[in-house]
């Protein structure tokens, strides 16, 4: 079954490559996405034991990220049927192949316990997404692509040297050289602390830049702003979580080596800095896709703070993987519709979206309410967990800064979103052929429903997985 998870998207990539029609290709994409989701659900119910000497081991943390990636990909694939029908002016072959290769590599990241393999898979996701950001083929998108490729490649290269340091630490310690997570955790006490410390710094910077934690976030607004809505959704809701999972693996190691206090402090500082940067740049943002990118910077910040706080907040971090991933899908897909309809992503031109596109406008508004942490949506639960556990643990400064940033971000985002959806459509607004249809509205609506459901009721099996995951990240005194 694990092999199917990796192979199915790869077969899909070959099939979409062979299909000559731009109209049929998204349908094939959806079929394979559906199959992948099926395999994922099957694996969550009947989890196979670790295989290949511990290289493949789908644990609770992997399950959470796999589930959120697979669900998001499924909805994005369905959406592509409706969306790409409006983009027939250029071939979508590279887009479909890139998405499927990325899905395969993403699945690999979630199921492997070998840090070297995890690194290769993560690098593959970065590279397979590069041509997708350049889908629009103009000067602005090439700039975004260049920044994305350069910063992410350097980040992943730094993560590699971090892994080399870890491997060398095992050699110096005289234990069997290995990059298997379980071996490293077992031998953690014997590893030399100098090498391990250096390794953690490089891994944090490396995976942090891939995740978009400030100050390594500068590629994000450009890449998210210039890529098509569905690519933005996969970047903000999928790739971010994969990088976070990699950080979780490092966190597990830190727990074992007793370097955890240092790593936690670094996470809290970077997380809060990300939230503050997002709050500053969110205000008066005239481009709604860039605004969503800063919202993504904010939410990786939230996840980092939650992880850094430890204790109960870790549950919030894990739940936020799902909550943020799915809500980002809602926002990017519906904003893609609005972009198509107005042929502009500047709030100077986009006004009265609720009148022009009652469905997309309404979903976008609901998505905004959800992502800013209002009940009854899922992000409320995770953010509330983090704040309350910060105050319970007596981390008043962290809790206060967290709340203040959330407040400023709410106001900043509202100042962009409300004029967009409310009011009258400008007289001179461009009229395009885009109309809301079931294919373009259904997927974001489906995602929104899930975000709502998770906000009011967490199914028992999912709750078990989340709690198992949190147990893996518990600090043992």
């Amino acid at each position, binding site marked *: 079954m694990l092999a199917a998870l990796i192979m199915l998207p790869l077969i899909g990539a070959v099939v979409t490559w062979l299909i000559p029609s731009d109209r049929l290709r998204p349908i094939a994409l959806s079929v394979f996405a559906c199959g992948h989701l099926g395999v994922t659900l099957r694996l969550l119910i009947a989890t196979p034991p670790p295989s290949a000497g511990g290289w493949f081991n789908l644990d609770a943390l992997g399950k959470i990220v796999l589930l959120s990636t697979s669900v998001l990909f499924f909805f994005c694939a369905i959406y592509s049927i409706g969306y790409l029908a409006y983009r027939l002016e250029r071939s979508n072959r590279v887009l479909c192949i890139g998405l499927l290769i990325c899905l395969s590599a993403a699945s690999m990241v979630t199921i492997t316990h070998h840090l070297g393999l995890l690194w*290769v898979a993560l690098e593959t996701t970065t590279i397979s997404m590069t041509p997708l950001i*350049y889908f629009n083929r103009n*000067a602005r998108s090439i700039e975004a692509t260049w920044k994305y490729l350069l910063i992410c490649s350097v980040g992943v290269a730094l993560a590699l040297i971090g892994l*080399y340091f870890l*491997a*060398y630490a095992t050699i110096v310690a005289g234990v069997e050289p290995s*990059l298997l997570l379980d071996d490293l955790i077992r031998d953690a006490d014997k590893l030399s602390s100098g090498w391990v410390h250096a390794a953690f710094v490089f891994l944090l910077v490396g995976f942090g830049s891939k995740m978009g934690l400030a100050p390594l976030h500068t590629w994000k607004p450009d890449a998210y702003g210039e890529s098509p809505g569905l690519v933005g959704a996969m970047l903000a809701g999928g790739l971010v979580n994969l990088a976070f999972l990699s950080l979780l693996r490092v966190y597990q190691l830190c727990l074992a080596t007793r370097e955890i206090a240092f790593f936690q402090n670094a996470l809290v500082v970077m997380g809060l800095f990300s939230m503050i940067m997002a709050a500053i740049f969110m205000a008066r943002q005239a481009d709604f896709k860039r605004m969503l990118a800063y919202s993504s910077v904010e939410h990786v910040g939230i996840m980092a703070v939650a992880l850094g706080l430890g204790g109960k907040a870790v549950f919030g971090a894990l739940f936020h993987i799902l909550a943020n991933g799915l809500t980002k899908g809602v926002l990017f897909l519906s904003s893609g519709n609005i972009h198509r309809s107005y042929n502009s992503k500047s709030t100077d031109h986009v006004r009265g979206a609720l009148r022009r596109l009652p469905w997309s406008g309404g979903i976008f508004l609901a998505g905004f309410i959800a992502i800013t942490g209002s009940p009854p949506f899922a992000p409320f639960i995770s953010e509330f967990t983090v704040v309350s556990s910060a105050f319970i643990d007596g981390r008043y400064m962290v809790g206060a800064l967290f709340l203040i940033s959330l407040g400023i971000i709410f106001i900043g985002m509202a100042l962009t979103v409300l004029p967009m959806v409310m009011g009258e459509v400008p007289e001179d607004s461009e009229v395009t052929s885009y109309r809301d249809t079931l294919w373009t509205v259904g997927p974001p609506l489906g995602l929104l429903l899930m975000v709502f459901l998770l906000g009011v009721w967490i199914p028992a099996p999912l709750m078990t997985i989340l709690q198992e995951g949190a147990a893996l990240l518990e600090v043992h005194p």
Partner: protein
Amino acid sequence: MITIADQLLVLVLLINFVVLGTSRLIFSIRAVAVQGVILGILPALIHPFSWHLVGIISMILVTKGAVIPLLLNRAMRSAGIKREVEPFLGYVPTLLLGAVFTALSFGFAGKLPMLAEHQNYMFVPASIATLMTGFLILTTRRKAISQVLGYLVLENGIFIFGLLLAEAMPIMVEAGALLDLLVGTFVMGIVINHISREFSSLDTSRLTSLKEE
């Protein structure tokens, strides 16, 4: 053999400064190619002979010594540029910074415990100094080609450290590094081509339409 390896590493460090100090792109491309070739020879000096080793070395020599320089040369000619003009930080300051980083990396490496058989070599300081040099080039240069060169130097730094692990680690990590270099450079090469078509130059500082006001 080991003393030769150490002398080659000194050469690698010197090439770092050559790349930091020159404005002629063709010269930088050649210098980085030479650095790649030296790194390709290194494994032959410290590991016993095997066909597997021969395969890896010839792959490194072909990619780093021939394919990548050719790609970059072609990109340079098609864009019609010869020099790095007005880097964000001048050549003298970057050279000085490079010297500081190199000194720091020797200090850093001295503090870390090493295996007895690696005790007396410069692998670790050379690796970290080269890594930092790559980072410096990446952040201070304007031209896309220079930035790719910076990335390559950074990769070279990682490669030097990888030599320490080559025996202990499975081939996968090695192959991963090479794959990364190969794919990364090819994709970067393609992006460079598109940049030169869109902007008819390879100056990344002209990529500013997305700046925040």
